[in-house]
């Protein structure tokens, strides 16, 4: 720093950076201020400029990004857990569009389609586990050689039935979703050969089938779904109206995530399962049961059921908490209703479409082009909506996919990276400010007063600096009481990091002041009678500032690293608040590392890039300020 004897005044810096526009080339060369030399030297280094540009980009992303990508900390969705990166969940294959769409079954994150040529196509995120992929459709179905009549897509399995009542299953069969033989009544009907299928539904771990006679057949996971349709009303349980018969009387069924409701032929709705405490049963409006309104269509979301009556009124009941019950005003009578996982979509008499419910992924935001187009067919399910227009075009709205995939709780990794980056950077930044303040004040005091003050502060710094950093930080954050909120915890972590990392700044400032005090020009200034305060301000401070700038930059990276290490170990900022560190703390096993690579690659990459860039900036600054260190 010996070459930088003059205080770079603010106006000087400005002039240095932008030039004054006066004076010829030689003059300019001769009168370059140290600040200008530094800036020019800094910008002549490609690595430093690269670091600066990339860092600024990342900084802007994490500071502005959260405004457009607000995060709901309480959100989690097991159905969307560990989804690979991609935005193709509703991309129907071009060949299928060419052949014309006969039927679409929308699963949670994928779709199964039947073309007019009788071929079955799949698209979207079809992977269920390492071994099971819904893309692996039985080969005979993909050639168009089988005359498929019905198909359905569930959470992790798909079903198709051909004209000859031949069953095809693919996907997961872990819970006997494929064991249709286990249903004795269905077996009997198949043996007699008089089964005419009306509706096929695939739920979460079970499959349901309705025949034209109004009989319902269910098979699959009996512990989750109340499989089996009760033959008659619960007379013994004290229901006050006349018993009805369900089997043989069912018009349509609607499947929620673990139960189902039935529309009966007389226009009433019944919950025919065994769980009488189910909200689908307990909250079922009386009007729908006693025949005072005539229901024309029913649908179900994961926890709710909805019904449309012949006057156009929409009834929603069940345990929905994501806006499924907030039925909007509709321009016309709804005639048909469809259910997704957390939303409903209704087709109106005039051909319009209305969606409501959870809009986290745009499931309830019907595009304007759908409103205008003549909709002939509508398919909904999971988080997806497909509307087929009269011209054969398909309009989609809903979840397209996740650019960076999702984590083990179904949370969007991109949004967590953006929001977590803001927290990591804020914590790192404020910790550095705290550390620098402590370091400068104590270092300044030690360097300025010297003697006893210096001795005491230096010894204290030696004790704190001599203690192993990480264990010390761990114990401090373990001492934070459990009751404090996550935000308070964040502030405490900032202070802890700041209070532990001031030692290097302190040493630097103290050494710099000491070495500057010994310089001849300071002695000369003293001899000339310059006041002590002026010497400090004009000669010593600028020299301290320049080294400080470098150390602050490098410390910023260090503080971010420390915060993320603490969070990674589970002692920093804790879930659900995301940081780049704690996003990685669930990735610490070989299964995640290998199979769900997106869960650690993206946060690690952006974090690594960020710290590399900060270090490049710091190195560039140091080299720019101290020409002697060039190339070191």
């Amino acid at each position: 720093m010996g070459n930088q004897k003059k205080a770079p005044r603010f106006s000087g810096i400005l002039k240095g950076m932008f030039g004054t526009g006066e004076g010829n080339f030689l003059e300019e060369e001769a009168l370059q201020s140290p600040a200008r030399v530094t800036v020019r030297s800094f910008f002549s280094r490609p690595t430093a400029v690269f670091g600066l540009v990339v860092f600024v980009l990342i900084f802007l992303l994490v500071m502005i990004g959260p405004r457009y990508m607000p995060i709901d900390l309480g959100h989690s969705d097991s159905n969307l857990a560990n989804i690979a990166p991609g935005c193709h969940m509703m991309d129907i294959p071009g060949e299928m569009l060419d052949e014309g769409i006969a039927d679409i079954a929308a699963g949670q994150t994928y779709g199964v389609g039947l073309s007019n040529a009788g071929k079955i196509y799949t698209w979207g995120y079809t992977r269920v586990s390492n071994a099971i992929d819904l893309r692996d459709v039985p080969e005979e179905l993909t050639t168009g050689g089988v005359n498929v009549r019905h198909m359905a897509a569930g959470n992790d399995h798909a079903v198709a039935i051909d004209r000859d009542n031949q069953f095809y299953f693919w996907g997961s069969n872990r819970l006997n979703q494929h064991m249709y033989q286990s249903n004795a009544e269905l077996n009997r009907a198949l043996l007699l050969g008089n089964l005419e299928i009306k509706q096929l539904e695939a739920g979460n771990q079970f499959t349901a089938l309705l025949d034209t006679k109004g009989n319902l057949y269910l098979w699959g996971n009996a512990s989750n779904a109340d499989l089996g349709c009760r033959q008659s009303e619960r007379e013994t349980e004290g229901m006050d109206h006349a018993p009805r018969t369900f089997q043989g009387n069912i018009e349509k069924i609607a499947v929620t995530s673990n139960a189902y409701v039935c529309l009966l032929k007389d226009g009433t709705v019944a919950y025919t399962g065994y769980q009488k405490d189910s909200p689908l049963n307990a909250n079922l409006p009386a009007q729908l049961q006693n025949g005072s309104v005539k229901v024309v269509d029913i649908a179900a979301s994961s926890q709710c059921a909805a019904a449309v009556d012949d006057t156009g009124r929409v009834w929603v009941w069940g345990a929905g908490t994501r806006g499924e019950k907030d039925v909007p005003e509709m321009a016309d009578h709804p005639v048909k209703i469809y259910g997704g996982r957390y939303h409903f979509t209704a087709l109106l008499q005039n051909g319009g479409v209305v969606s409501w419910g959870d809009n986290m992924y745009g499931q309830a935001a019907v595009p304007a082009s759908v409103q205008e187009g003549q909709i002939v067919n509508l398919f909904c399910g999971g988080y997806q909506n497909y509307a087929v227009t009269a011209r054969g075009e398909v309009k989609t709205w809903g979840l397209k996919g996740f650019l960076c995939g999702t984590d083990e709780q179904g949370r969007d990794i991109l949004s967590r990276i953006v929001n977590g980056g803001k927290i990591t950077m804020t914590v790192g930044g404020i910790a550095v400010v705290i550390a620098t303040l402590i370091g400068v004040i104590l270092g300044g005091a030690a360097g300025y007063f010297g003697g006893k003050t210096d001795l005491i502060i230096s010894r204290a710094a030696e004790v704190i600096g001599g203690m192993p950093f990480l264990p010390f930080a761990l114990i401090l954050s373990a001492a934070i009481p459990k009751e404090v909120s996550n935000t308070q915890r964040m502030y405490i972590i900032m202070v802890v990091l700041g209070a532990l990392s001031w030692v290097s700044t302190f040493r630097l400032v103290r050494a710099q002041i000491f070495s500057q005090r010994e310089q001849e020009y300071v002695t000369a200034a003293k001899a000339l009678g310059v006041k002590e305060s002026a010497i400090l301000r004009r000669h010593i401070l600028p020299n301290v500032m320049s080294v400080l700038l470098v150390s602050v930059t490098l410390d910023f990276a260090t503080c971010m690293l420390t915060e993320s290490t603490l969070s990674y170990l589970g002692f920093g900022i804790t879930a659900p608040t995301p940081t780049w560190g704690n996003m990685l703390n669930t990735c610490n096993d070989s299964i995640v590392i290998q199979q769900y690579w997106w869960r650690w690659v993206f946060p690690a990459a952006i974090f690594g890039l960020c710290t590399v860039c900060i270090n490049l900036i710091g190195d560039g600054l140091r080299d720019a300020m101290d020409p002697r260190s060039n190339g070191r």
Partner: protein
Amino acid sequence: MAKYIAKRLVYIVLVFFVASFLMYCLFSLIPSDPARSQLEGLKQSLKPEAYQQMYQQLRERMGLDDPLVVRYARWIGCMPDKQTGELDGVLQGNFGYSLMRQKDCLEVIKTPMANTILLNVFSTILTLLVTIPLGIWCAVHKGRKLDQGVQAFTILGYSLPQYIIALIFIYVFAVLLRWFPVNGAATPGNPYTGLRALLDRLYYMALPMLVALFGALGGMSRYVRASMIEALSMDCIRTARAKGVRERVVIYSHAWRNALLPVVTSIIGWFLSVFSGSVVLENVFGLNGMGSLYIKALNASDAELCLAIQMFYTVVALLGNLITDLAYGIVDPRIRVNR
């Protein structure tokens, strides 16, 4: 030299007491109640009042309500224990009782301590063996393509947090190439003894050691390179070369002796960070070391065990300081005279 060593020793002992007192204060912040946990079994069989009374008596007997300084003095072993009336503290070799494992802390930390020391000693040796020659080579061949490559590469080492390096290394070397095991400390259920057992453990430690090496590559080799460049630009080097001294001698005898001093300084900081850094490594690789035990103890609020482990870290840090100070004295003759 003897006076210098004596001075440093006195200083270290002083720092030990200050640091351990600080630690004790910190750990008293962790909510932990040995009296309550000792009475936990009796809680159901006693009436609330009787339980409360017994609890207070036990607190009194254990001296839990005494001032912090008194408790510290008891714990460190400068004041007699309240129950036995004998000096029984850290200085006497009693590190307390681990509530988590229901054993004496000393018993609990024995194996992890051996593991951690083994890991760190080997990784220190490995790192020094690699970084110092690399730093010297880069300094001598400064500006060449390979040197620039190494410099760019080493930035990664000190910019990336250790756990990210570990994740990448696990992915590449354990999952993709299958050269090393993903985690663990030794082949489960192996019958090996002697050298074979040591080799087996080293095989399991190879990946953590590589990760530590990669991290240290950035800091250490850059530091060696910088101080070598500084040393090589000294006048005495030019003189030596002018005299016609062989280049090898110039580099390893003249320049390296001068460059050693700042390198030794940086080893202090690095040595400390190796031990505390192994907290991360042990957790990532599932090694049964002090670091992973520390995390478990912190999670279980086992204050006495934490304190014992923390004392281990502190002692290691102080020893590191002492060794560096002594090395300083050996490397730089001026220090012996001046201090």
